[in-house]
């Protein structure tokens, strides 16, 4: 053993070839295991960071937010989701969730509450929206689970709605929030994505009123985001400069933006 250590700490020039091979091998593997161990320790550290309510740790969340800053740089009103011929649209469209739809809907009294400020709420009926110019879109709807489906929707552009109701001041804020009438489901959306020309307040699927399980009477269709953001059955609409609550990001650890 002392011989071994003597070899390791002897100058290369004083060693014969066999000793040099031994020394170089031992030194290299020593660093190899030290660095490997450090990497493993780093991984363990990352895995054991305290998590937020969405079960995502702060370092991970920081990088996801940075990702969005980088990739949102590409977000542009000129980058449109590809449109398909209506004939390619699925009928019926896939139904993938019923969050926020479990409470029976009071169909007769439904209205969208646009909360401009505390105590200043606009009530928008479906007929009001139908009076605005209608936009139809047939695009490949993408679910965060990984499947996609070409679907055909109709409604009023969110940006058109903002113009028609003089809500440009509200839309000047950074985030839009939507929730279902029973408040069981809610999404937060960055305003540039909400104002994207393909974002619809949607009341038709395949030229017919939305089915109940597709969010009757009014839902969001936002092709620049995963389907989780296309909230079914809008109850409240609100605006904020802080991030608005988001079910999947706050509770389940998904990325807040989920942009495409």
């Amino acid at each position, binding site marked *: 053993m002392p011989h071994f250590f003597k070899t390791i700490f002897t100058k290369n020039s004083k060693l014969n070839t066999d000793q040099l091979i031994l020394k170089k091998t031992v030194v290299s593997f020593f660093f*190899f295991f030290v660095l490997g161990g450090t990497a493993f320790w780093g991984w363990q550290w990352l895995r054991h960071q305290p998590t937020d309510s969405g079960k995502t740790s702060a370092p991970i969340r920081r990088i*996801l937010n940075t990702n969005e800053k980088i990739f949102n740089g590409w*977000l542009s009103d000129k980058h449109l989701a590809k449109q398909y011929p209506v004939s390619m649209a699925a009928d019926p469209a896939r139904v993938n969730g019923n969050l926020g739809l479990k409470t029976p809907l009071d169909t007769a009294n439904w209205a969208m509450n646009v909360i401009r400020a505390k105590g200043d709420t606009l009530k928008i009926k479906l007929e009001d929206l139908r009076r605005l110019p209608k936009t139809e879109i047939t695009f490949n709807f993408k679910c965060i689970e990984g499947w*996609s489906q070409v679907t055909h929707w109709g409604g009023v552009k969110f940006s058109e709605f903002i113009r028609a109701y003089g809500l440009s001041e509200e839309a000047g804020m950074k985030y839009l929030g939507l929730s279902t009438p029973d408040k069981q489901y809610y999404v937060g959306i960055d305003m540039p994505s909400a104002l994207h020309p393909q974002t619809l307040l949607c009341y038709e699927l395949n030229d017919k009123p939305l089915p109940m399980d597709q969010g009757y009477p009014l839902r969001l269709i936002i*092709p620049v985001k995963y389907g989780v953001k296309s909230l079914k059955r809008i109850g409240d609409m609100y605006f904020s400069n802080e991030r608005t609550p988001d079910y999947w990001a706050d509770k389940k650890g998904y*990325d807040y933006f989920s*942009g495409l």
Partner: protein
Amino acid sequence: MKKIVKKHPLAIRWFHWINFPVLAIMIWSGLLIYWANDVYRIGFGSTTLLKFFPNSFYQAFKIPYRLSEGMAYHFVFMWLFFLNGIAYVLYTIISGEWRLLLPNRHSFKEAWQVLLHDLHIRKTKPVQGKYNAAQRIAYSAIIVMGIGSILTGLAIYKPVQLEWLCILFGGYKFARIIHFALTIGYVLFFLVHIIQVILAGWNNFRAIVTGFEVEKVKEEPVPEEPLN
């Protein structure tokens, strides 16, 4: 007599050993994502020969119901995979190592000889520089695959903003299939790589850690009588 011969530069050893755990994390987190829509299989008609993946596989690796965790780790570690890959490619170009790595006009013929030799069908040893012909092809292909993973990954990550990229890979659904198939490719590469490393032995493995190989050199025969 033994001789110490330099084989792998320090930079390449770093790239190799960074890539190993990073790619492992990418494959693991990718599985967490894939599980949420696990529709791929090998088969014909309604007959399935191989389903990706059987339930037992998911259970064994604790895959189910971890989509958000998978996405989070995938989109964090993609940066390391990308930066390490770029560094490797740039280093290979700048240092001139690419000459030892890229296949040349003899490689495809020679690779066949390597295969026959490795399968003990052919006795004569094929030409072995730093990398033999089969290695040149395999190690160059893996770079192309890495680039493919990054591009198809980007295509399905931002299919609206990068629509042209999505179209280039045959659309959203097909880009996801390519992204998945490349991953299966890495796993197959890894299996063959491990077998080859084990067969090649300690001297070869040591080189990817220490950088050198030990070569036996014949001692010059000393003439018994002085020549006139």
